[in-house]
């Protein structure tokens, strides 16, 4: 029940900009599209690997920029990978992960999702938090 209430609160707050998940304030601040992206974790480490879309694929990466602020109430632990949804409610996964979330107080991260070219984006979810990205695209 508590979880449900938190989820509903997160959605309401998230849809207007920022939301809080277990001691982390999250907000979506931008959307970009490309054929080549960094696959660094969040917050970014030193991993040099980048992902690409091959010329034969009619796909692109939709990259969501997330702003993260670690609050004093953060107790550590894993944060699930974000999921992206389009306007038809199709779900997209990312290769990237949250790692060592509490290692910095605040940072921005890019999470990239492989989507069909031109997909209209709707929202991104991280566990119970939902952030509207439709206006950013």
């Amino acid at each position: 029940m508590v979880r449900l209430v938190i989820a509903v609160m997160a959605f309401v707050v998230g849809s207007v900009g920022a939301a809080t998940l277990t001691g982390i304030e999250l907000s979506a601040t931008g959307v970009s599209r490309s054929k080549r992206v960094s696959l660094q974790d969040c917050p970014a480490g030193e991993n040099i690997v980048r992902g690409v879309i091959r010329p034969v694929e009619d796909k692109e990466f939709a990259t969501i920029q997330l702003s993260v602020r670690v609050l004093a109430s953060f107790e550590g632990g894993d944060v699930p990978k974000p999921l992206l949804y389009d306007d038809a409610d199709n779900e997209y996964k990312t290769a990237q992960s949250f790692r060592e979330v509490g290692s910095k107080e605040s940072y921005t991260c890019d999470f990239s999702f492989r989507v069909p070219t031109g997909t209209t984006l709707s929202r991104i979810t991280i566990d119970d938090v939902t952030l509207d990205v439709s206006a950013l695209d």
Partner: protein
Amino acid sequence: MEVDRRALFKSLGGAAAVALMTPEQKADALEHYMEEQLNAAADEPEYPTVADLAARNEDLNRPHRRGAGFLFAQRNGKLRKLEPMPEKPSLEDFFALRFAPASHVLQSANRALSTGMPEEVILGCLLHDVVLNLIRPDHGWWGAQLVEPYVPEKTTFAIRYHQCLRFFPDEEYGYEYPESYFRTFGEDYVPEPYLQKTHDWVKNHEWYEYPRLVTVNDLYSFDRNAKVSIEPFREIIARHFKTPEEGLGWDNSPSTHMWRTLIWPDRSL
């Protein structure tokens, strides 16, 4: 373009390695480094095509063919000095004396360990590329053959098929096609039919997740600054790697000869 001297030296194996390079090799290395940096920053970097890469193979003055294992080829313009192996070498001895620095596989296994993956996968990550010291083409199959007598069947399966799965993105598992493959195989490369067929078979196999998880960890194991060691994997090796009493290379298993070749890479026959 500003060159980060420390990063450049590090990418070449350190100041000592750079000191051993000829002026021509240094110039080549600098050019390659700058090209990499530019490509990393560029919106649309230029990649070779399959034909471009085939043309490079026409150079018959190369110090080795591209498929030569790391032990048999010059790196940074020089062969590596190899210390003799102990009488009864263990896997850890090979890591220390033949596979070192092994940073990539240690990072890969470290990530698998820290994300709570099954021990068969962690061991698979630890061993998935060690055969590159011996030979590089089809390294999944060679690598599986090398360790098959000593590791769980799922680990062998993971190592054998990770190579093939690297060519096929899988959104379910969060595996992307790596940009480095544009450079290694060509931007227009299409996996050969044997890879396509193998992928289709493995994709429908009940153990698909084992090689797929090796590829997922493969993506995150190229951090040049990562500090890694074999220490966290000692217990997993003890539990799952059946070290022969006689030592690797002397136990008469089907892959003994491969370990012996790693022990004596300078034998000409």
